[in-house]
């Protein structure tokens, strides 16, 4: 696999806080690679190191074969970067922003229009509107166009879907899928675990460290304990009662159901019988496959 991004032992400290602790991973050419983790995990710091805006305290990284410290100028010309905060000029119109970013990179909008056309078409009806007055979803589409206008070889998107509604989020991921089919390498971060499945491969990141790297299917396959979905009436009391029951290693909320991790020797019928004895009727317990959140929590516990 030809590598578009390589990071080895990347470490960054801010005073006494270690924002990134010896992070290593590689992204292959043409991959859509997701960095999944909560606020404060170190995602934005990693983006700033890879896009040469910060220098690491230890370790090193390459983007497109260039060293992020020595060859920062070459990298800045070749990558597209959409930071986590709104990065356009609010007082410039949609088309003025696009022209401006093209000029910065010494290209004309029409040179690479084919690349942004499917995205730009959606905001073109508002081309004379000031960027500051666009909706969240449209701002994000414009920011993506601006990050793509010089036809970058690697695209860095820091939490592009935070704060936008489910419809716009889905549209955004469809655009990333389309860009992948055109061969663009993308590193994208998100705090939302349900978006992990849209990536070729993901790295789970928490508290400055990478917990695991794999395909979304490979990650969930790492969950090797018996897992059940538990539901019934009085869900809160049920949660507390389940935790007290023999053979239950862990039980935690999971939206409409609770997830229960069983120990060896756990017997569903005995479990339901025990709960019935405590007044819980119509308890449903089904074996299920783990999701990204289950794996994430398991790996978090491992690190402790």
């Amino acid at each position, binding site marked *: 696999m030809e590598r578009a991004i390589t990071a080895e032992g990347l470490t960054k400290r801010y005073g006494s806080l270690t924002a990134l602790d010896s992070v290593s991973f590689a992204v292959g050419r043409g991959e859509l690679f997701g960095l999944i983790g909560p606020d404060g995990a170190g995602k934005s710091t990693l983006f700033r190191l890879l896009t040469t805006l910060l220098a690491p305290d230890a370790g090193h990284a390459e983007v497109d074969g260039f060293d992020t410290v020595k060859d920062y100028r070459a990298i800045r010309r070749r990558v597209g970067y959409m930071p986590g905060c709104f990065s356009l000029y609010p007082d410039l119109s949609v088309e003025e922003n696009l022209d401006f970013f093209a000029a910065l990179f010494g290209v004309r909008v029409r040179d690479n229009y084919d690349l942004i056309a499917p995205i730009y078409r959606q905001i073109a009806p508002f081309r004379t509107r000031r960027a500051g007055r666009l*909706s969240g979803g449209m701002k994000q589409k414009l920011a993506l166009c601006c990050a793509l206008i010089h036809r970058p070889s690697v695209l860095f998107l820091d939490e592009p879907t*935070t704060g936008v509604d489910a*419809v716009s989020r889905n549209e955004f991921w469809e655009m990333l899928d389309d860009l992948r089919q055109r061969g663009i390498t993308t590193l994208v971060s998100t705090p939302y675990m349900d978006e992990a499945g849209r990536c070729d491969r993901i790295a789970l990141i928490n508290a400055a460290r990478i917990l695991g790297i794999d395909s979304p299917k490979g990650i969930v396959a790492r969950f090797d304990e018996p897992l059940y979905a538990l539901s019934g009436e009085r869900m809160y009391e049920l949660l507390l009662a389940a935790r007290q029951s023999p053979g239950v290693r862990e039980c935690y909320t999971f*939206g*409409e159901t609770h997830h229960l991790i069983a120990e060896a020797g756990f017997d569903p019928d005995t479990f339901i019988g025990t709960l019935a004895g405590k007044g819980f009727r119509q308890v449903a317990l089904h074996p299920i496959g783990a999701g990204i959140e289950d794996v*994430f929590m398991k790996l*978090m516990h491992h690190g402790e």
Partner: protein
Amino acid sequence: MESEPIIRVRELSKRFGDFTAVDRITFDVARGEIFGFLGANGAGKTTAMRMLCGLSYPTSGSGTVAGFDIAREGELIKRHIGYMSQRFSLYDDLTVMENIRLYGGIYGLSRREILRRTAALLERLDFRAERHTRVGRLPLGWKQKLAFSVATLHRPEVVFLDEPTGGVDPVTRRQFWELIYEAAAEGTTLFVTTHYMDEAEYCSRVSIMVDGQIRALGAPAELKRHYGARTMDEVFRMLAREAKRTE
């Protein structure tokens, strides 16, 4: 439900000029419910919620929140509800104690009452050792628990939560939902607005707003069944895609 609904809304509308932001919404929320209030950007969610929180008055329609009239008693509503947002709730530069005292004062509690409730709150959260720590230095999970406790310091019957767990790790998130479940089991009503459909799955019932109107209302399982969807995300997208208006 046997008792009076804690939130009761009938044909509530809000117009700005000739734009109808909220268009005759009608629903009830029972005591002890965790009610999810969903909608795409621009669907009218924020405008509706501002009316429910007593921050703006409706153009037409009627309703009550915790027994107070939405059309006339905004000030009283504000004093009797709790509000918490993931983005902002506490002052990072104030200590744990100072934050509690500040909010106690805002909610109009007496000094003695503030002291009494502060002690109880620190005890319950096991925060005594951290009472003089600046909130900015607390781990996110602690901050959230504190923010929720502060938002309920005046023992409101209904608490509004705005995207309460966006961006937090899955363990912290579950600790928070347990706090919510506990409050609901004790009879507090939780009114949750969120963009994130996996948060919606935690609610007892949800409503989905499209173009200023409530298009769907029910338990997540019912809605998924009705729309033949696997997740709330699918249900939401099916409905929101029909939206005619953009922001």
